[in-house]
């Protein structure tokens, strides 16, 4: 009798650990996929118009507040309106802030994107205030799902399925449709694309609309998990996606997506496994990674080898 208790105790502890490992793995993969969506968005805007859009994080913040306002409405309404609002803001951002700077240098665009980012944050401070607002997710979402005897959070599974579905849809759209071909051509040589008749406005608005829809979905998944929204909500995820994108190479849509996935998954795993006092160093870890990459492979880990010249 006396010897049985410790055994069963360690067994249950072990079970608990396996359970944790699997939940962390599922979380890392699903949030890695979420960061991949963001990195893909940043890369698309960057390669089409030379814009590193730091205001992309604020789209997620806007989505979060939309969810807060609609928290008592039906979930269908919340999903649809959040995505629509974020997409519209994304397109307006282009129309108001970036279109007048169409021919400006990448540096000017970068400064402008910081200004938009900061402006939207300040707007949120002035209107809703600095105190985080609770967006408690639907109980159904946070319930655990039993898969082969292992319980995994439903939200993680949904996040994973939705992001992968979106990645596949965006990839198919980029490869199969005329607009997709035009977008890809524009990421390669925007001036030449215009010379063969690609309409600049159409392609750029499409890029902002597509990345806006993606930001809306990211907001839904991310804020459901964080459970609250504050004016600076978008900064953290934007940083991870940006660094991941740079690691993979912002000039390549595939490279940036993979980079965003890997760094997003790594950061999620680190935050879950490192002791609390160390997990605040994950940002430091991210920046060290980007510096190392910029020194060793300036065009990104997955940048293709030099294209054969005639």
């Amino acid at each position, binding site marked *: 009798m006396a010897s049985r208790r410790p055994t069963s105790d360690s067994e249950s502890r072990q079970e608990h650990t396996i359970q944790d490992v699997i939940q962390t793995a599922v979380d890392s993969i699903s949030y890695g996929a979420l960061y991949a969506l963001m990195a893909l968005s940043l890369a698309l805007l960057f390669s089409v118009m030379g814009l590193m859009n730091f205001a992309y994080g604020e789209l997620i913040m806007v989505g979060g507040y939309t969810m807060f306002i609609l928290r008592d409405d039906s979930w269908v309404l919340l999903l649809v309106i959040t995505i629509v609002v974020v997409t519209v803001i994304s397109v307006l951002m282009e129309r108001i802030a970036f279109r007048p700077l169409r021919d400006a240098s990448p540096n000017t665009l970068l400064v402008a994107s910081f200004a938009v980012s900061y402006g939207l944050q300040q707007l949120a401070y002035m209107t809703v205030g600095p105190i985080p607002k609770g967006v408690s997710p639907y109980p159904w979402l946070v319930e655990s799902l039993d898969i082969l005897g292992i319980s995994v959070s439903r939200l993680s599974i949904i996040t994973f399925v939705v992001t992968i579905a979106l990645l596949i849809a965006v990839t198919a759209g980029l490869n199969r449709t005329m607009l997709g071909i035009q977008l890809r051509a524009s990421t390669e040589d925007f001036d030449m694309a215009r010379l063969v008749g*690609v309409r600049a406005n159409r392609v750029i608005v499409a890029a902002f609309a597509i990345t806006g829809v993606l930001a809306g979905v990211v907001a839904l998944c991310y804020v459901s998990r964080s459970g609250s929204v504050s004016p600076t909500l978008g900064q953290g995820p934007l940083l991870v996606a940006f660094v991941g994108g740079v690691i993979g190479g912002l000039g390549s849509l595939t490279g940036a997506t993979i980079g965003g996935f890997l760094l997003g998954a790594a950061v999620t795993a680190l935050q879950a496994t490192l002791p609390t006092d160390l997990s605040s160093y994950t940002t430091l870890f991210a920046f060290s990674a980007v510096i190392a990459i910029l020194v060793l492979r300036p065009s990104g880990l997955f940048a293709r080898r030099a294209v054969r010249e005639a």
Partner: protein
Amino acid sequence: MNLLTLTDVWVRYGRVPAVQGLSMHVDEGQLVGLVGNNGAGKTTTLSTVTGVLRPSAGTIEFEGKEIAGQAPDRILRHGLSLVPENRRIFARLSVRENLQIGTSGRKDRAKAKEDIEEMLGRFPVLERYHDQPGANLSGGEQQQLAIARALLARPRLLLLDEPTLGLAPLIVDQVFDLLEQLKSEGVTILLVEQNAARTVSIADRVYIMRTGGRIEFEGTGDELAARGGLETAYIGF
């Protein structure tokens, strides 16, 4: 009838004038050659006509309508299509996608699809590598792709910037054959070339341009011969 007319066109890079008071014209159905030394201003001229650069003075008319300063995608829709210097095919797009994007300015989608297939028939190499990325083609193959891409816009005027640059003699022959064939099909062509003798031999009219976009000679091959031929015109190159 004048399809394209440039009148007293000035183009500057910053404060440096690259083209100073250029006037020239291309008649419908003709093949017009534009030759000149490196840095003369030939590419600058084509970039200005296609809307990549904005002239600081002068007028550019296509079919009698002013087009100077319009955006490239708009100018293409008037019926001007460019085979640019250094080909600039989309390296990551497949050969077929490079052709598809050439139809961006067209509204007749169904006919455009047929034209792509027809173009693949016309250029066997492109047919063979149709699902390969453009980067995998050799220089001569890329040149054919760039020409096919430009033709798919169904231009009234085809502008070519040194289409034989860096190609083997046999391929150069093929490009010139193709240009003659296009001309016989009624496509109007403005051809910029380093290969002045070949250009004079197939062109209805030629312009010889000197640094600053100044026109040194303008006329037919016979008129050039009467003036002592290319050698005389090219003294000082």
